[in-house]
């Protein structure tokens, strides 16, 4: 039977497939039907399909959350990445109106030649704007620019009822402040309006600094708080004693008009692109080499080498580095996570990121690092950032610091690593800390209730019950951290 004429071979309704859906860290994975809508009507159709099958629906962008934020083992998954048109771009005002599945990569490539850069980006360019907004991601400029939600002017969201609602700081502010950072519990974004940042060059002026211990790293970051647009600390988790938390700080600032003699050159997309090979070796296969180092002795060596190399770089201050290279360090080596293993659900990494106020951060993290070494579960990568508060109800942001620790998970250490993570979380909560749903994989419902201000959590849950009484929108994350509240009748 030949195809129906005039349909272009396109079946009605959203595209679907059946896949193993995993978290970015590869530690959790579940098979699901994945639905890929291309319009608001098809988003509604996805809601109806899930209802028809009597299962909840999980929202997913490009799956860059480390944990279980975009996994739904009990039902279907709505993947928004096919709705990826840039609806409007105003090069005078720097305002972009986007479909939800536009990636940050697509956004910066479109706006940089006009002299603009996204206000907030995480360490990778592959997330969608919908995912970035739902998780309220942050970047290395969090202390200045705030979170991704702070750069959002307005959004449209398809509620579980099918109604499309527009929200901004003035219009439906409750929905605005709850859905941003609300990890896809209230509806599916269908249009996002973002403000962007004017740049006068495609380069940043970067200064590298050495800290001999955690105190020095954090003090260096504080000292650059007022002058640096981007600020990130890296620490070596292996040394103990006086050198515990030794590391490097990179402070970068945007260039002023005139500082870059040839801005047209550095604003080109091609200038920002990174070479696909390193010394003739294809970068796509570099992770295979990294895998050889992906063990305690190898990573002890790699971290030490990085520290020493960083000390040498510090002698060349300041350097001019492309925006993309500074903003997206996680993209330097494609698929580097495969160094942790390539078996979904079995091997991978857990990132434990805690956010602490200034007063307790240093002492708490020294204790955490010591416990990691004591347990012989040492993080292979540890990153420090400076933060400021934001107005979103479910936010992780604090006026203080964050420390992100990457742990290798294997079938042998799985249970022990989760227990270790939960233990660390208790210490962080006791110190007044918070957690980030794009990363977390260890918290339980009581933990969330203890670190989020009760009034924020309660009004979020009340809104969830009002907008989604049947509990249509769920993920493994929501069932884990919100418990029965999110489940509704489904």
């Amino acid at each position, binding site marked *: *039977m*030949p*195809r129906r004429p005039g349909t272009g*071979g396109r*079946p009605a309704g959203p*595209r*679907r*497939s*059946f*896949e*193993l*859906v*995993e978290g970015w860290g590869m*530690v*959790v*994975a*579940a*098979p*699901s*039907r*994945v639905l890929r809508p291309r319009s608001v009507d098809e988003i509604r159709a996805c809601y109806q399909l899930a209802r028809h099958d009597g299962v909840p629906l999980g929202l997913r962008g490009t799956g860059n959350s480390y*944990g*279980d934020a975009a996994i739904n*083992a*009990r039902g279907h998954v709505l993947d928004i990445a096919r709705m990826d048109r840039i609806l409007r771009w105003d090069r005078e005002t720097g305002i972009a109106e986007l479909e939800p599945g536009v990636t940050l990569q697509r956004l910066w490539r479109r706006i940089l030649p006009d002299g603009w850069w996204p206000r907030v980006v995480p360490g990778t360019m592959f997330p969608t704007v919908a995912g970035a907004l739902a998780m309220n991601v942050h970047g290395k400029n969090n202390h200045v620019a705030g979170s991704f939600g702070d750069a959002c002017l307005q959004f449209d969201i398809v509620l579980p009822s099918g109604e499309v609602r527009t929200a901004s700081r003035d219009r439906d502010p409750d929905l605005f402040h709850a859905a941003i950072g609300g990890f896809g519990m209230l509806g599916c974004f269908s249009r996002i309006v973002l403000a962007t940042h004017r740049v006068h060059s495609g380069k940043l002026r970067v200064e590298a600094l050495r800290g001999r211990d955690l105190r020095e790293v954090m003090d260096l970051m504080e000292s650059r708080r007022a002058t640096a647009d981007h600020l990130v600390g890296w620490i070596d988790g292996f040394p103990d004693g006086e050198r515990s938390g030794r590391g490097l700080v990179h402070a970068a600032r945007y260039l002023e008009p005139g500082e870059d003699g040839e801005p047209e050159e550095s604003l080109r997309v091609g200038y920002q692109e990174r070479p696909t090979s390193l010394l003739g070796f294809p970068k*796509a*296969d570099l992770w295979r080499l990294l895998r050889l180092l992906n063990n305690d002795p190898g990573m002890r060596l790699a971290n030490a080498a990085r520290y020493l190399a960083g000390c040498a770089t510090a002698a060349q201050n300041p350097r001019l580095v492309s925006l993309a290279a500074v903003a997206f360090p996680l993209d330097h080596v494609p*698929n580097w996570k495969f160094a942790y293993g*390539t*078996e*979904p*659900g*079995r091997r991978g990494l857990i990132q434990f990121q805690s956010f602490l106020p200034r007063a307790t951060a240093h002492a708490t993290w020294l204790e955490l690092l010591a416990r990691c070494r004591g347990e012989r579960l040492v993080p292979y990568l540890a990153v420090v950032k400076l933060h400021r508060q934001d107005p979103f109800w479910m936010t992780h942001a604090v006026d203080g610091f964050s420390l992100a620790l990457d742990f290798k998970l294997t*079938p042998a250490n*799985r*249970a022990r*690593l*989760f*227990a270790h993570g939960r233990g660390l979380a208790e210490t962080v909560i006791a110190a007044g800390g918070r957690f980030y749903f794009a990363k977390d*994989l*260890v918290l339980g419902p009581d933990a969330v209730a203890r670190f989020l201000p009760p009034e924020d959590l309660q009004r979020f849950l009340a809104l969830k019950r009002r907008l989604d009484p049947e509990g249509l929108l769920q993920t*493994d994350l929501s*069932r*884990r951290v919100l418990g029965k509240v999110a489940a509704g009748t489904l």
Partner: protein
Amino acid sequence: MAGLALGAGSTQDDNPAAMTANDTATRDADGTPTPAAAPAGARHALVVGASSGLGAALVRQLAREGRRVAAVARRGDVLADLVRDASAEAAAAGGAVFAHTHDVRDTDAVPALFEAIVRELGGLELLVYAAGTRPAVGRTEYDTEKDLDVLAVNFGGLVAWGNQAAQLFRTQRAGTLVGISSIAGNRGRKGHPLYGASKAAMDNWLESLRNRLAGEGVHVCTIKPGYIATRLTAGLDGLFWVATPSQAAAAVLEAARARANVRYVLRRWGVVGRLLPLIPSFVFRRLEF
């Protein structure tokens, strides 16, 4: 990496992420992963175009090896006979055979059927696309509808099933897709224009898919048979190097296990396959085969 274990000695499903029929419930994230609850010795395979010839032989062979096999074909009655015969052997070896009636031209139906089959099998690591048609074409016949129908069966169906398999296999970073092409795709012969063109399209598409998925733990294998004693060749004169269906099925599974890129069946056809492109056009157009 959980690769495909086609050897008869495979007794353990070591891919914890593999789906089991009812394993869609949440597992505690920190729960120690357990092997899929499939019967010992079972792996999961899907054969499209299973009612006769090579496809049927593949189902029988996989059943004998104790795998859980889904057999998909258009002719439900023939399929029922096959499943009846193969089920007993499968059960004896710890496997099972499931039948699904489906016309590969109905590509809209593929996503739902694919999902139902993977859930039923409890996972999938091997998909063989063996559906094919080769209608006789008259010397003066230029029939668009008939030609495009050949393309739909031989190539359209492969794309529909292959795309579904590609998405599952790449996300589980394991799996093998096998396409049964033909040596007929190597040159444009006078006799069966769309059969040859559809096989050439298969070759190119399968190679593309192989290259796209190579870094993601997925293998794509192109099988190029010469002659196999099936309905397509019944009653033809002048055949040589003819493989029996079971001989060909064994060769296909061996090629998949060995992660061969392109494998001729019988292998000696590879010599012919490589020589064919070297024949100049003015000579080739005078050949009658």
